[in-house]
């Protein structure tokens, strides 16, 4: 049962994602504990969902549907149509037909790769100038109460423009939800990417940001509806401050 004052006056703005940060956090925390306010929220959410119907009409160009259908066909052939062989299936078929030749080529490639790996290993062992991962800034993210076992590591490129996030031991989510990384600066949260984790809680995502990653003051990961949200709405599972 919620012991805080109700946040009903904040709910209309909550559904429009236009609360300032402090009010958003206040409302989110209260909603998590108050079924009455959640009921009110659903009523306002139903209103917010309908606002799309009141935008001025615009007609998509005719070519857009052709573009859409062209995007779909190669990725997932219709169940009712005969399956067209993908490029790798065709390659596999070709290899089956030419097994003796490919066997010989494969043997040569294996020997060449083994030799080149040995040479590279020797070079790496000797060299003092090889780029080392520790030269890249890394930021550790730690689990919140919602995911105390979880850890995350954000590896930032040398120029600070891009990064890779690796997470471990995060709970696996149902298909309707995904994790979303938030880049925080001056109280503003910008999405850094949406991702899922494998059954053992491991996941990674390439982080792309409008500004250098080094310019953000903190990072956080929340659970959001699949595809991500314009601002954090779900439970925070990982976070850190620089």
């Amino acid at each position, binding site marked *: 049962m919620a012991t805080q004052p109700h946040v009903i006056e904040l709910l209309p703005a909550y559904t429009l994602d236009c609360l300032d940060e402090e009010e958003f956090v206040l409302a989110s925390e209260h909603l998590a504990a108050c079924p009455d306010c959640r009921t009110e929220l659903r009523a306002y959410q139903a209103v917010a969902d309908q606002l799309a119907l009141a*935008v001025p009409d615009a007609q998509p160009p005719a070519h857009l*549907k052709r573009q859409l259908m062209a995007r779909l066909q190669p990725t997932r052939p219709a169940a009712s149509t005969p399956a067209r062989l993908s490029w790798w299936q065709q390659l596999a078929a070709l290899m089956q037909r030419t097994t003796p030749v490919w066997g010989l080529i494969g043997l040569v490639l294996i020997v060449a790769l083994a030799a080149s790996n040995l040479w590279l290993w020797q070079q790496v062992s000797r060299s003092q100038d090889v780029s080392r991962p520790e030269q890249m800034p890394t930021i550790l993210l730690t689990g919140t109460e919602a995911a105390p076992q979880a850890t995350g590591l954000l590896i930032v490129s040398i120029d600070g423009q891009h990064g890779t996030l690796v997470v471990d031991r995060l709970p696996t989510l149902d298909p309707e939800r995904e994790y979303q990384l938030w880049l925080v600066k001056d109280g503003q949260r910008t*999405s850094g990417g949406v991702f899922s984790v494998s059954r053992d809680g491991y996941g990674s995502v390439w982080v792309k940001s409008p*500004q250098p990653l080094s310019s953000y003051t903190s990072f956080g990961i929340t659970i959001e509806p699949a595809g991500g949200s314009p601002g954090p709405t779900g439970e925070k599972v990982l976070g850190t401050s620089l």
Partner: protein
Amino acid sequence: MNYSVLDDQTLIRLVARAHADALGVLYERYSRLVFSLAWNLVGDQATAEEITLDVFTRIWEKAETYRPEQAKVSTWLTSIARYRSIDMLRRRGSRPEQHSVDWAELAPDDLPSSDGPEEAAELAMQQQRVRAAIAALPSDQKQVLALAYFKGYSHREIAQVLNQPLGTVKTRIRLGMQKLRDLLLEEQRVA
């Protein structure tokens, strides 16, 4: 098979089984709504087209995750479109200030065709109800709701843009949404 007579949920089930024609019908049914929303949010044709393609591609890839008890198909589509559009605006780091935003004028004679299955007729009726409800709001409430909805502005940003006290903006948004809620609930009871 004539997919165009099927309801939205059946079409989504077919999309989940890789029937591209079913997605084509959903596109015919809702592309105008999705494109209109994206265009009004991002303010340029090319980006709105890309968002529209993204929305329907996502439906193609994630149709099996659709839960009818949580939202109508049209709501699912517009939610994705709005999130994508606002995310695009925020990623750009700037918003199209020069792009004026406003709600559609209520023009009953110009409503979308209600021919077709139940969903299309219901959508047309619902559009009329929502547009009438917004038309009934005072202009200052319509204005703040438009800035919040179309541009993803926070209370504080709206107050800055309009040069109005923060408290005034908060009150207008709250009153506007409360009135819409009352009007739409009343419409539902009448309908």
